[in-house]
C-alpha cells in the first residue's frame, strides 16, 4: 500500500521552496492558542497535570516530527531536552530567573550544541543516523552521571528558584501550565514557520536526497537548519519538564523517552503537524489512565506502532484525513 502523506508533494522539486501554512498547520496553531486558556478554565489537578505532560510531550514530538520531515529518525531528543533543561536550571540557580531569558537560553544553547554536532552526524543517513542519535543519548546520559559537580550527577538538581516575569514569581500550578502552553505555542509557531519555509526542500530531501542534490538543492543547509531548530524545540521541552517537576534528573532523559516521543509522533501521524499534537495528547492521557499498570503502556505503544506501520501509515491524523477524503469523493 502506498504511503499516505497529507503534505503536498507534487511540486516537490519546484524552484521556490516556501509555501503558506496549510489548513492543518493553522488548526495546530489554533489548538495551541486555545491551550493557553486552559489554565484559566479549570482548577482540576488531574486535567492540569495531564495537560502539562501533554504539552511537554507535544514539544518533544515536534522535534522528532521536524527530523522525520527529512526522513531522519532521531533518538537524540532526550539529549537536547537535557541540555535545555539543565541550562535553564543552572541559570536559575545562578539567580537569572527571568523567564524570557530562560526560555531563550533553553532554545539557543541546545541549538548551538546542535550546530557542530549536526556538521558531523548529518552526513549519515537512514539507519546510521538512527544509531548515532541513539548513541548520543546514551553518552549524554553517562556524562550527566559523571559530572556531579555541574549537573548534580545521579542526584540531579532540585530546589531551584521559580522563573520570574518582571517582578511576578511564576511558581503556582497555573503559571507552570501557562508557561508550558506558551512555550508549546512558541515551539509550534517555529515549527510551522520552518516547514512552511522549507516545505518543498524537505519534501525533496524526503523523496530522494541524491536527486534533490543533483538538481542543485543545497541539501545540507536545510538539513542543518532542521536539526538545529529541532534541537532548540527539544531544549524548550526540557525546560518545560524541569519547570513542571521542579527538578532535573538523569532518569528523565533516556532512550526510553526517545521511544515514547517517537511513538507519539508516528502514531499521531508523521505526515502532518497535527500528528504529534494528537499523538502526544492521546498517548499521554492513555498512559495516565493505566495508573499502576505503567509498564503496560509500553506494550500498548508497541501494538499501536505495529498497527500504524501495517495499516495506517499516516497515523491517526492520516487515517482520519483519508476517511474524510473518501467521504468527499463519494
Amino acid at each position: 500500500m502506498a504511503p499516505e502523506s497529507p503534505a503536498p508533494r507534487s511540486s516537490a522539486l519546484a524552484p521556490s521552496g516556501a509555501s503558506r501554512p496549510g489548513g492543518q498547520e493553522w488548526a495546530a496553531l489554533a489548538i495551541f492558542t486555545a491551550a493557553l486558556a486552559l489554565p484559566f478554565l479549570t482548577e482540576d489537578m488531574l486535567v492540569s497535570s495531564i495537560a502539562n505532560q501533554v504539552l511537554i510531550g507535544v514539544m518533544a514530538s515536534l522535534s522528532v516530527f521536524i527530523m522525520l520531515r527529512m526522513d531522519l529518525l532521531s533518538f537524540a531528543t532526550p539529549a537536547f531536552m537535557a541540555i535545555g533543561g539543565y541550562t535553564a536550571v543552572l541559570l536559575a540557580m545562578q539567580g537569572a530567573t527571568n523567564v524570557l531569558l530562560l526560555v531563550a537560553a533553553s532554545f539557543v544553547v541546545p541549538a548551538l550544541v546542535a550546530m557542530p554536532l549536526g556538521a558531523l552526524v548529518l552526513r549519515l543517513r537512514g539507519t546510521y543516523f538512527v544509531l548515532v542519535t541513539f548513541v548520543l543519548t546514551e553518552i549524554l546520559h553517562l556524562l550527566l552521571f559523571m559530572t556531579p559537580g555541574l549537573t548534580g550527577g545521579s542526584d540531579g538538581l532540585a530546589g531551584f528558584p521559580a522563573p520570574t516575569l518582571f517582578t511576578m514569581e511564576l511558581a503556582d500550578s497555573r503559571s507552570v501550565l501557562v508557561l508550558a502552553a506558551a512555550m508549546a505555542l512558541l515551539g509550534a509557531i517555529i515549527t510551522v514557520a520552518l516547514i512552511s519555509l522549507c516545505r518543498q526542500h524537505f519534501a525533496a530531501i524526503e523523496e530522494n536526497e541524491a536527486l534533490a542534490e543533483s538538481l542543485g538543492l543545497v541539501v545540507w543547509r536545510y538539513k542543518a537548519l532542521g536539526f538545529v531548530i529541532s534541537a532548540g524545540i527539544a531544549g524548550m521541552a526540557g525546560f518545560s519538564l524541569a519547570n513542571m517537576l521542579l527538578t532535573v534528573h538523569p532518569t528523565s532523559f533516556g532512550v526510553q523517552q526517545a521511544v515514547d516521543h517517537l511513538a507519539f509522533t508516528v502514531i499521531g501521524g508523521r505526515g502532518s503537524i497535527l500528528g504529534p499534537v494528537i499523538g502526544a495528547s492521546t498517548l499521554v492521557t492513555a498512559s495516565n489512565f493505566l495508573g499502576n499498570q505503567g509498564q503496560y503502556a509500553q506494550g500498548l505503544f508497541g501494538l499501536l506502532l505495529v498497527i500504524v506501520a501495517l495499516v495506517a501509515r499516516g497515523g491517526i491524523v492520516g487515517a482520519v484525513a483519508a476517511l474524510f477524503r473518501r467521504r468527499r469523493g463519494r
Partner: protein
Amino acid sequence: MPRRTTRGQAAAAASARRPLFAATIALAMALGGQAGAQQACEVKLGALGPMSGPAAQWGLAMLGAAELAAAEANARNFTVAGRRCTVSVVSYDTRYTAEGAAAGINNLASQGVRFVIGPVGSPEVTGAKPVATRHNLLMFANSYAKNAIGPQWPLVFHLGPGPSEWAAPIVLMAQQQFGMRSVVVVAPNDQGGTDIASVDAEVYRSLGITATEEYYQRGTTNFAPIVTRILSSRPDAVDTASSPPGDSGLIVRQLRQAGFTGPIGHLGGPGTEEIIRVAGGIDVLKNFYWYEVVPTEDPQVRAIADEYKRLLGRDAPENTNMWLWVVGARMTLRAMETAGTTTDTRKVAEALRAMPVDDPNVGRGSWAGQRFFGINQELSLPFGAGLIVDGQNRGVRRIEVGQ
C-alpha cells in the same frame, strides 16, 4: 465532597456564572472520576512506587502496606471527627523515575488523595517531593537518599531509620563474627547506589575497617569484570550495599566463582530471598550478613503477613519492606483520627510528630532524624541484622533503636 479544597469551591462558584466554565469543570470532574458529590467520609490513601520493572517488588510492598492498613481501619470502625470513614487505596506506577513520581503525585492529588505512602527510590523521592509540597500532600517516603527529608519539606516523613542509624550495629556484629579488616562496598552509580554506599563506607571506616567504594553502571548484566576489580585489592569482605537483589545475587555468585571466600554483606535493603535464589542457594552465600528492615523472625512481626492474608484473602507481598511500611500507613491513619481531619495535612503532620511510636507488631520506636537530616521526621523502628555462617542461617537478630 470533603476532599475538594476551597480552591475547588471557588472555581465551582465562578463556574455558576459562566456556562463555559461549568462545562469544563464538569468535564474535568468526569475525567478525574469524581462525578457526583458524595457525603460519606472517604479517605483515599495513595500508594506510590515502582509497580513494574526491576524494582517492582518495592512498589508492590508499598501497595500491600497501604492496603493492609486500609483494611484494618475499615475493620475497626475508623472514625474521624465523629464520622465513620472508609479508607481506600489508590496506586500509581512511577516506573522508578523522577518524572513518573511527579506525574503520580499529580495524578493521586487529582483523585482526592491527601496522604501518600511512598515512593521508595531516591530518584522517585527527588521527583515527588517538590510536587507533593506544591499540593500540600503528606508523604511517607522511604528512600535512603541523603536529602530524603529536610526542614524545607515539613510534610515529608521518612519510614525507617537510614543507613546512618542501622549500619553501625550490623557492621559491629559482622566484625565480631568474621573479624574483617577491609571491605569493598559495591553499588550502582546512581543516587540509589551512591547515597547508601557512601554512608555504609563511612560507618565501616568509623569502626576501623578500611573501606573502598566501587560503583557499576546501572543495567550491568555481567559482573565478572567488576568482581575481578573488587578482588584485585584483596578485601576481607564485600558489601553489596543497595545493589538491587537481582544484581546482588549475581555479584555473590560471580564472587564465589572467582574464588572469594570472605563474608559478603548486603547493607542496603531487603531481598535476601531473591539474593539466595539468584546466587544459587544458601551454600553459595556461605558467609553473609545483611540489614533487614524489621526483625523478620519475631513472631509478632510475622503476624503481619497472616493479618494480610486474613483481611485481604491473598498472600502478602514477598518483600519484607511491607512489614515496615505498614507501620507508617497505620500511624498516618491514626494521626487523622487524632487530628480530627482527613484533609488538613498540616494538622495531621502535627499529630503525627507528637504521636508515640509503638506498633502492635513491630514494637517501640522513636522519631529521629534531627542530627542527620535536620528534621525529626524519621520513623525509627527496631530492625533486624541477619547472619549466615558457613551456609547455616543463624537468623535475624532484633536490634532496638534509641528511645
